[in-house]
Each structure stands twice: as structure tokens, then as C-alpha cells.
């Protein structure tokens, strides 16, 4: 089914890329801004800074008091938040139509004039909040640090994806007001951002509002650096063991993948689905259903832009089963897949599930706007939401086999194992 969400694009004189996608089905407008800065841009000793900075964007700017973004927009019926990830930072709100210009005015104020309002007190407070976020999401959760180990083992030291977006406690402690000023000046500015408006407005209305509220801001961000050099697959298997107090053994088996938005990445993603991402995929059928040596198998492909992406399987080893044997079975399936490639049924299933999940993602204005911003900012492709399904439909059986043979080779695996330690051993 060809998709035809309307996409209108324009670049303001100050470099702000604006996309308007009218959709009058709901009387709301989603304002979504992507800034081309994420944890991949952080320097050694300042990990976690892009995310801490994002928190400060809610603590007031030239004309806006601390906390007012939440108080004012929520009181107008807005739902808003922001997130930080390896490649980028996004800020977004969905508001009743009559409030979207206020939302734009408020966004422009913090994206243009944050530094007028940043204080040591706000920095210290949000540093504490972010530390609690880290403890809640990573440190105080069984297996919570598994992906941090995966990133560190899959990507070499100093690589943009070697450290997690949440950063380290020591680096959060080291962040200073001077860092905040330097970071804002370098990365924040209309020429390093994309603004997407989706909802009950016309393209002309959207472009005029973007010009009215953002047009006066100078193109203040420094030019973005080019992507770093591509990485080849890991050359020999790596294993990281984390024995500890966990309910059952869990393995993350991870691989480097090609950069996002390439045919080879899509092929690798379909291979990962066929191997572990469907309820009919090979690892689920064998490990969970037939041999019952695993309680669950999950599979993920995370697309990145800096020369490499990440794919991994998560396997919960069943009680009393040997993780070595389970890993050996995974290796066997990877080797077999690299030779045989996917079956027609696996291809059909992976495509059908990709179609449904893509259509579901586009069903709401919020996520649609976010996907538009993503592909304009990182790939210069405003039509991606409409063309993605056609692009993956072009991926053939042999493409998927070849991608698996290159990127999911057992020799290129990184295995992070959380192994349950019996209480008696801990005491002894």
C-alpha cells in the first residue's frame, strides 16, 4: 500500500529546516524539534552531558520561568517531553490547535536564549534528578547495566557509541556552568535543528508560524562534523561476564551492523527479525518452544549514523540450563542462516510485521512527527515515512542472507552474560 502523508518542506534563511504535515483528523498540533547533538558528540570526562543539558531546557530561558514549559503547556492541554539518545536530542509537545503558536514561541525562546536563565542552582538540582534517573533505570534494576556493557564491548574506546547516553556519575559531577554555555553555543541553533509540525494546520500556516517565532534567531550553531569512519564487524568473539544476584541467567549477544538508512541495514534488520524477532523466528522456535532451554528471546536492531549500528539478541536462559550450550545453539543457527538465508515464510512474516508496526507508528501525530524529524535531520529525507515500506519490500532473500553472513557472523559476536550466583556462594 503506497503511503501518502503530505510532506511540505522549507528551509528558513537561518538554516532551520521546517516540515509541515497537515492532518485535520484531530484538532491538535504536534511540535517536534530534533537537534543534531547526542551522546555521540560528548567528550571524554563529560559523558551524560547532552542528556543533563536537555533537562536544563525545562528550567527556564530568557522569557520563561523555571518549570514553566511544563506548567504552561500542560495547563493548555499539552503533552510534552524530551529525550536524548546517541545521535540526537528531541523536544516535543502536542497541544490543542489554538495553543501551537504559544508552543512555538516557548520552544524558540529556549532554543535561542537558554543561557539567560541557566543557574548553578538549576544545574545542581537537575544533576541530582539525572542521577536518580540513572539509579532508577540502570543501577537499581537487575540486568540494568547490560546494554552499557554491550556498548563498551561492541564499540572501541573513544568511539561515539562506546559510552551510554546516561553517562557516568563522575562525569555528571564534573559538569559545570561553563560546559553548559559552551555546549549551547556549539550545538544549539536553527542551523543544527529540524522543526516538524503535524496536525490541524496548513503548510502556509505552519511555515508562517515557523518564520514568525524562529526566523529572527541567528544561525548560531557551529557546522556539524561529518560522520566518523565506518567500522567493520568485530574480528573475534568477545565475552563479558557479570556474575551477580539476578533471578536467572541472561545473555545479550550483540553485533555491529551497517549504518542506518541503508539497504544493507534494512537487510540486517530483517535477518535479526527472522532469527529472533518474531514468535516464529528460528531462535524462538528452537530455544523456547522445542528445546525449552530459554524462557524468552528478544531481538533488536538500533540504527545509528556514525559509521556503524547495533543489533542484539537477548536470551533468558531457563532454570537449570547451561548458558554455554544455549550460546552454542545460537551460533549454530547463525551459521545455518548465513548459508541458507531466510525462507519465503520468514521473509513474508518479517515484512508483514514490519508493515503493521510501521503503520502503527505512523497512526499518531506524535510519533509521525518524530519519524519525520529523524529522517530529515539525520538523512535529509522528508519522504521517508512514505517510502520506507517500499524500500524494505525491495530487499530480497539473498540480500538478507548476505547481510547476515557479513554482520551476524558468530566470530563477530559480543556476549554479555549476567549469571545468577547462588546465595550460598555469595556468603562463602
Amino acid at each position: 500500500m503506497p503511503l501518502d502523508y503530505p510532506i511540505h518542506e522549507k528551509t528558513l534563511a537561518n538554516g532551520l529546516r521546517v516540515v509541515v504535515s497537515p492532518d485535520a483528523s484531530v484538532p491538535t498540533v504536534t511540535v517536534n524539534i530534533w537537534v543534531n547533538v547526542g551522546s555521540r558528540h560528548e567528550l571524554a570526562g563529560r559523558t551524560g552531558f547532552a542528556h543533563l543539558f536537555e533537562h536544563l531546557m525545562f528550567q527556564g530561558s530568557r522569557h520563561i520561568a523555571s518549570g514553566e514549559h511544563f506548567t504552561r503547556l500542560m495547563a493548555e492541554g499539552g503533552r510534552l517531553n524530551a529525550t536524548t539518545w546517541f545521535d540526537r536530542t528531541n523536544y516535543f509537545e502536542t497541544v490543542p490547535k489554538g495553543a501551537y503558536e504559544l508552543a512555538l514561541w516557548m520552544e524558540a525562546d529556549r532554543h535561542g536564549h537558554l543561557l539567560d536563565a541557566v543557574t548553578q542552582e538549576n544545574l545542581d538540582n537537575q544533576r541530582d534528578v539525572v542521577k536518580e534517573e540513572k539509579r532508577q533505570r540502570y543501577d537499581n534494576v537487575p540486568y540494568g547495566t547490560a546494554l552499557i556493557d554491550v556498548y563498551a564491548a561492541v564499540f572501541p574506546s573513544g568511539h561515539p557509541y562506546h559510552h551510554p547516553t546516561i553517562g557516568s556519575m563522575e562525569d555528571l559531577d564534573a559538569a559545570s556552568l561553563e560546559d553548559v554555555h559552551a555546549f549551547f553555543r556549539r550545538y544549539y541553533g536553527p542551523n543544527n535543528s529540524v522543526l516538524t509540525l503535524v496536525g490541524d494546520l496548513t503548510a502556509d500556516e505552519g511555515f508562517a508560524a515557523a518564520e514568525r517565532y524562529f526566523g529572527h534567531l541567528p544561525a548560531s550553531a557551529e557546522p556539524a562534523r561529518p560522520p566518523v569512519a565506518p567500522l567493520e564487524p568485530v574480528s573475534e568473539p568477545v565475552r563479558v561476564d557479570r556474575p551477580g544476584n539476578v533471578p536467572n541467567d541472561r545473555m545479550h549477544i550483540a553485533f555491529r551492523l551497517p549504518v542506518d538508512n541503508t539497504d544493507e541495514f534494512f537487510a540486517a534488520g530483517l535477518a535479526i527479525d527472522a532469527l529472533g524477532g518474531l514468535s516464529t523466528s528460528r531462535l524462538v522456535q528452537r530455544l523456547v518452544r522445542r528445546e525449552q532451554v530459554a524462557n524468552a528471546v528478544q531481538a533488536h536492531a538500533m540504527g545509528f549514523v556514525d559509521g556503524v549500528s547495533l543489533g542484539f539478541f537477548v536470551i533468558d536462559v531457563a532454570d537449570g540450563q547451561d548458558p554455554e550450550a544455549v550460546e552454542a545453539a545460537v551460533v549454530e543457527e547463525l551459521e545455518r542462516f548465513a548459508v541458507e538465508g531466510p525462507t519465503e515464510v520468514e521473509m513474508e512474516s518479517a515484512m508483514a510485521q514490519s508493515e503493521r508496526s510501521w503503520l502503527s507508528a505512523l497512526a499518531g501525530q506524535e510519533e509521525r512527527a518524530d519519524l519525520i524529524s529523524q529522517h530529515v535531520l539525520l538523512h535529509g529525507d522528508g519522504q521517508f515515512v512514505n517510502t520506507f515500506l517500499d524500500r524494505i519490500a525491495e530487499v530480497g532473500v539473498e540480500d538478507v542472507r548476505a547481510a547476515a553472513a557479513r554482520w551476524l557472523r558468530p566470530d563477530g559476536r559480543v556476549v554479555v552474560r549476567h549469571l545468577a550466583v547462588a546465595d550460598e556462594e555469595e556468603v562463602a
Partner: protein
Amino acid sequence: MSSVTEGADLPATDHPPTDLPPTEVSVAELPADDTPPRPEVRPPEVWRFATPARHTLSNGIELLSYDIPGQYVISVRTVLPFPLSVEPREVEGVASIMSRLLDEGTAEHSPEEFAELLERKGIALGASVTDGGLGVDLDVPKRRLGEALDLLRQALAEPVFPGPEVDRHRKTRLAQIEQERALAPQRAAQAFIATHFDETDRASRPTAGTTASITALTRQDIVDFHAERVGPTGMTAVIAGDLSGLDVADLAESTLGTWVSATHVPAAETIEPRRATDAARVVFVDRPGSVQSELLVGWTGPDRHAPGGWAAYPVLGFMVGGSPNARIDALLREEKGYTYGIRSVFRPRRVGGLFLTSGSVRADATVESVQLLLDLLASGRDGFRAEEVQAGVDFISKTAPGRFATADAVADEAVTMALDGLTTDFTTKTLEAMRELDGQQLTAAYRDWVQGEWTVVIVGDASTYAEGVRELGIGDVTVVPA
């Protein structure tokens, strides 16, 4: 095909949030710069939840269909109300395990064949059991709706519960129990129900069963439960999405409508769970070395049929603990920096409900946080400021069009109402009533349920902090192992 996790600024909330202090800067205070004037906001028009088309299928299933143009993934939800007390005591969790096995083999298809049929058609099918009954859901691209409905019929009407699949799902549940024990929020929830509800009441024990009850469960228990408790009588089916060009009633009649059950016994009405006589106390679940303490504070709350109406409670949950600037996080997050976020919610059950406040705090702030949290919860009895009330009402009522914009959100709301014996007209009427609320009514509603008695659960390092909590004098403190 990909899944991404990321560092968000705010924790997820059950109900989205609200705000507190009015902090507008007037135009007169603007420094001389080229910033355009702050734009005025035009108020939104009054919004109503969509009205469904209604059909009663020949076997008694009530069908509600919502045509939402542009929603190309159709969401189908079925619900069958029954109280969990219909489960035999010794095999509690049988309803949940039964629900997880519905698509693991049917009269026509082996488990692997059935999974393949779902995958090849791009169908996502899921089933679950709550205190209100059974829910079976699916999402499917529009052109596959008819085939999907027939697979749904097979799952509901003709599951065969193969022995190896039963064994696997029992083992999976046993492993899940251990996972839940290791996760602080889940461990807190389990300690909460065990403390708050009378031990003879089903509500005091986990919905999906305990290690003992799942170990005792047999295939025959599951077969019997399905035969007796799952049938078309009393079921509501919701189909939401872009239905143009589809005869939904006909599709549903030729699939779900053909299901008959000679053995199904419609369930008795749910009764309100009994609170334990010693529910007002503190349980400290000991996790030595924990870097945070998980707090869960709650007491009996209203259900949607509450005297005086339901409209006040989403607003109250919000003003107290719904955003970074609601009363709790304004102090514990934005001033003290003790937490990433604490949320309050009035959670209605089929009969009766709970008022719950939960979140995690830095370990060394445990004792102070518990005291501050109880003080903040008590403060609502003294009233809410006009601007808090306005912001809370506006947030919940004005976000409704966006919150109910997609097929899955509409369908979810419709079955939530159906499980409660209501329709989405209740959603519309609640929003209307909400707009008329004033501070006095909200304070009175809060006082109806908040009287200073709490079941308090803390999951954290008891050896370091339990004594300090005891010294607060907020109730008996019992330390239990994790």
C-alpha cells in the same frame, strides 16, 4: 523492525500530568529584543468521544465499532468480565495461564502453525487477565481484518492447550515470579496487596498466581476453566480504525458470531475486596545495599461509580502527583532532587479502587522522603488553589482529543469502560462534569478518601533505614526479606 530505548526527561505516567505555580512573565517585562510578542491561546472547542455503531451478534456478543478515518491498523479488543474469585483457590493464576495459551494450538492448527498464520498476516495478538476479567486483543492492517477475526475466534473458542505448551507456560510464569521479585516496583506492589487486603481475599494475591499455585496447576484445570468461564455471553468486542468499505458487523458475525459454548457459566458480580484490619502499617522489604528506596503508599479509593461522580479523581491524582510541578515532585524532585519522579493515581477497580502514590528516592533520603510524602498527601485535605484546579481540569479535559486520537487508544478506552459495565459516553460525561468542578468539590472528594491512614511499602536497605522510619511514628514497621 527495530526497537530503541532512550533517556527521557520524565518517567512515564498512567495518567498524564499537571502543574502548579503560575509563573508567567508579562509582556511589559520583556527586555528590548527581537523576540515576537507572546501569542495568545485560542480555547479549543468542546470535544466528545466518538459514538460507536452497536450490534448484538447472534451469539450475544456486543459489538462496538468506531470508524476513525486514516487509522490503517485496525484495533480489535474483546473483554469478558469475571471476578478472579472464580478461580479455585489452590490453582490461582489459572485464568492468566489459560489466556497465555489461547494462541498456542487450536482445533485446526498446531501452535507453530497458528503463530505462523498470525505472523504472515502481520497480526499482533495478545491476551491478559486483570481483576476485571479476560481481555484478548489484536492489531492488524485493514485488509487482513476478516482473516484476523477468524483467527481470534479460533483462539477464543477452540484452544486445545497442548501438554508441552502448558508445561512451558507454567515454567515461564515461575521464572516471571522470580523476575518480579527482583524488580523493586513489582516487589513493592506485591507487598502492598498482601498488606492492604485481607489475606482471605483474592485481591491480596498476584493475579497470575504464586509459585505454589502455578506448581499445582494442571492442564485439566486450564481446560476446565476455559470451558466454564470463557464464552460469548457477556462479551464485548470493539473494532476501531478506518472501517470505510468494510461491513464490520457482517465480518464479526461470520467469525466471532459463530462461537457457541454449551458449558459457559456467566460469572457472578464482582464484590469489593476486603481491606485487612491491620492495613495501616509500614512494610519494609529488605534489599541490602540498594542505592534507592522504592516507595508505594496507598489506601482505598473510589471506583467509577463513586458517589459524587468520578470526574474529580483524575484531576486530584494529577494535582498531587502528576507532573514535575505537581505538589509531590515540586518538592521532592525540583527542589530536593531526591527522585526522578513520583506519581499519584486513583486506580478504579470493577468495584472499589485504590489511591496509589509510587516512585523511587535516593537511599539516604529515604526517611525524610517518606515523611515529606505523607505530609504532601495530607496537604490536599486543606484544599487546592484555584490555579492548581484550573490547570488540572484543563490538562485532563483538553488533552482528551490527542489522547484518544488513534485506533488503539479508542479501542482500549472502550473496553476499559465495557469491563466496568459502561460505555465511552461515560468518558464524555466525565469530561463535561470535570469542567464544572471547583476547588471545594475537589477538596471534599479528596477528604472522602484521604484520612491519614496508609499502607506504606518501602523496598530498600532496611538495616540502614528501617529504624529511622520507625522513629517517624507513622505506624508499625515490619521488615520482610526481599
